[in-house]
């Protein structure tokens, strides 16, 4: 006999005391004494419940590069990574710069149904940086686009950036900037520093990121609009964002899991699995990024999940594509870098992986605290489990994970999206 109620039995919300979370009709119906809830029981004693994660920076590659990822495979990877919502970046082929393309992606997400897929619209036509895309049409389309980004490319023209920031105010949008001054990063391959000089790889200086962020926060202040900074990677960028926030500028920022853990030293292997944009930086930067995420200067962890087929990484460094997988490892890297180090507690981690990213992207129905009446987007994790990363077993179509072979802490056990299990016992629920 089917139950209309699901009970997460004995689960510890945010790692606190065990309770039964009773879910019905897609919302949290009751938070009851452990063992008392009635309905279809999912055993969760010892496990921690968090609001379902929201990734505001994912590359699902569809349409155009279905050999690397599709909305379906990316959705599976996202669900297994504890996410209930992802924002699909616009640098597809064709570019998501029209209502038609964003609606296509949105429909594909609906059809898969494992996570809510929120398409990101391009800021400029074809990511060309010259002419605004039809931002309003995308905002009013079925996809209800609120986040716009030319990610992969920087909106480098100050006048275009200003207009974009102004224009999206009409529908509460946000411009997510890939901060990279193009003239300072021609042919750039890795962080500019002593190591890039030794390895003979063209440097990608931190100032190319920091100068754009500095310009953009001033523009955002001037036009009083919302700016989001993608994948902040340097200690200097943190300082700029901190300063901007102290002035009350409406700026938010994200950091990727890999920038919280990995450093440029790995590039000395010339293994393109470590090639990413922005590049891996120094341990000083890693420390600053972790501290900024802990204190809230950086608002969110976002994966920048960037699938690439094998042949685009199995080559010499300069010829390889930029990017790393992130969806299925993001939570574990967050545990490793932020929880195990004591920088964040579970409630704060939920804030950075769910609450704030949902708010930045205006992801309706996501990022709510675990309380009665909230949408039942819930992720249940085992903080004590550890696992060995084997990219061959990933749900993603691609294998370009920099963590292959590493033993990581923390496992995703169950995920509910709108009350329905998408992951049970660590596997996709059918």
């Amino acid at each position, binding site marked *: 006999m089917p139950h209309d109620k699901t009970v997460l039995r004995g689960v510890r919300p945010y790692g606190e005391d065990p309770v039964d979370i009773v879910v019905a009709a897609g919302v949290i119906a009751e938070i009851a004494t452990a063992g008392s809830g009635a309905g279809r029981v999912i055993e969760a004693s010892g496990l921690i419940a968090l609001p379902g994660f929201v990734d505001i920076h994912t590359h699902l590659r569809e349409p155009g590069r279905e050999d690397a990822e599709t909305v379906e495979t990316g959705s599976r990877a996202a669900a297994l990574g504890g996410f209930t919502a992802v924002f699909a970046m616009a640098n597809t082929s064709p570019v998501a710069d029209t209502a038609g393309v964003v609606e296509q992606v949105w429909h594909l997400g609906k059809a898969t149904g494992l996570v809510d897929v929120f398409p990101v619209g391009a800021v400029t036509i074809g990511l060309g940086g010259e002419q605004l895309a039809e931002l309003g049409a995308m905002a009013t389309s079925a996809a209800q686009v609120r986040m716009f980004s030319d990610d992969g490319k920087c909106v480098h023209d100050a006048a275009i950036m200003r207009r974009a920031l102004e224009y999206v105010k009409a529908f509460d949008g946000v411009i997510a900037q890939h901060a990279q001054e193009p003239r300072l990063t021609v042919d750039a391959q890795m962080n500019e520093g002593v190591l890039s000089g030794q390895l*003979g790889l063209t440097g990608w200086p931190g100032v190319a990121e920091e100068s754009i962020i500095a310009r953009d926060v001033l523009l955002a202040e001037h036009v009083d609009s919302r700016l989001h900074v993608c994948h902040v990677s340097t200690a200097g960028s943190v300082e700029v964002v901190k300063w901007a926030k102290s002035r009350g500028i409406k700026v938010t920022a994200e950091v990727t899991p890999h920038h919280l853990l990995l450093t440029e030293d790995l590039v000395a292997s010339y293994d393109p699995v470590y090639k990413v944009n922005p590049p891996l930086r120094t341990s000083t930067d890693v420390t600053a990024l972790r501290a900024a995420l802990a204190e809230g200067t950086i608002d969110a962890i976002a994966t920048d999940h960037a699938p690439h087929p094998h042949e685009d990484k199995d080559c010499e460094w300069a010829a390889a594509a930029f990017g790393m997988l992130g969806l299925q490892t993001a939570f574990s890297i967050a545990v490793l870098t932020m929880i195990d180090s004591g920088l964040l507690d579970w409630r704060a981690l939920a804030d950075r992986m769910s609450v704030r990213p949902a708010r930045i992207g205006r992801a309706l129905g996501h990022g709510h605290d675990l309380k009665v009446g909230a949408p039942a987007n819930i992720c249940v994790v085992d903080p004590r489990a550890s696992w060995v990363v084997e990219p061959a077993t990933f749900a993603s179509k691609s294998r370009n994970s920099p963590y292959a072979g590493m033993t990581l802490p923390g496992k995703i056990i169950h995920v509910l999206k709108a009350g329905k299990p998408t992951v049970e016992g660590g596997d996709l629920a059918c």
Partner: protein
Amino acid sequence: MRHLLSAGDLDVVSACLILDTAAQLASVTDRTVKKFPTLRGRTVVNLFFEDSTRTRISFEIAAKRLSADVINFAAKGSSVSKGESLKDTALTLEAMGADAVVIRHGSSGAPHRLATAGWIQGSVVNAGDGTHEHPTQALLDAFTIRHHLRDGMGDLAGVRVAIVGDILHSRVARSNVLLLRTLGAHVTVVAPPTLLPYGVSQWPCAVSYDLDEVLPHVDAVMMLRVQSERMHAAYFPSVNEYSRRYGLDIRRMGLLPPHAIVLHPGPMNRGMEISADVADGERAVMVEQVANGVSIRMAVLYLLLGGITDDGKKEI
């Protein structure tokens, strides 16, 4: 030694072994039969993704003088842009049984990748990769300097060398700084600040922007080729200004100690980084550098292929 990828991989003992071996092999040039049977039956592939007739011929002569079979594989102009062709080419060479691959590639780290990606079993010799390294050039430069300033023996302890020009883009400079330092020499790199890499202050060498100040205190000066396209990327204002500030002309030759020699990895831009009368002068050793290049490459191929491989596998 399994591969030669970076001059930085050589310690003073192995570097001197290469130089000493090259010194013995240099005698072959005086003989009627300019050949040893040492690498008979071995196959050396010259895999050149960039044009460099000089380097390619030098390796080719070196391999042939050791009786190796030589295959020249010029991959330039094929569909290299996709990058995967390095792997496919490597797999092809492996299938053909290449014992050593001498690779010239425009991408820094390509030889490293070839040696470590598991595509091939043979030895890899870096014949210049991007703006990274060119270890055999550094070895032949060290050999030439040793010949003139240390009677062709031992290390280069105390020798003072200036490397002048486009340090930023020069693989020759990187390899020379590492190798000369290992051999005990004191190196000063001299260039306009725009042509010095970020972080050069951490390199094992001194840094100067002023050539006139450096010249009186060196035993050897190595002039690097400056490509005029650098001017268009605003690394310096004009060819004339560069030449005035960093070119080696007769006036500057007068600043050098009388025993000092002038090196250039070639090809030279006469009138740019070096004036014609200096290039043709008696203290210029460029022709010797070319001859020494063959001996050095023979030594490297012999030491890589002339014994059992490092994994202990006996090959008959």
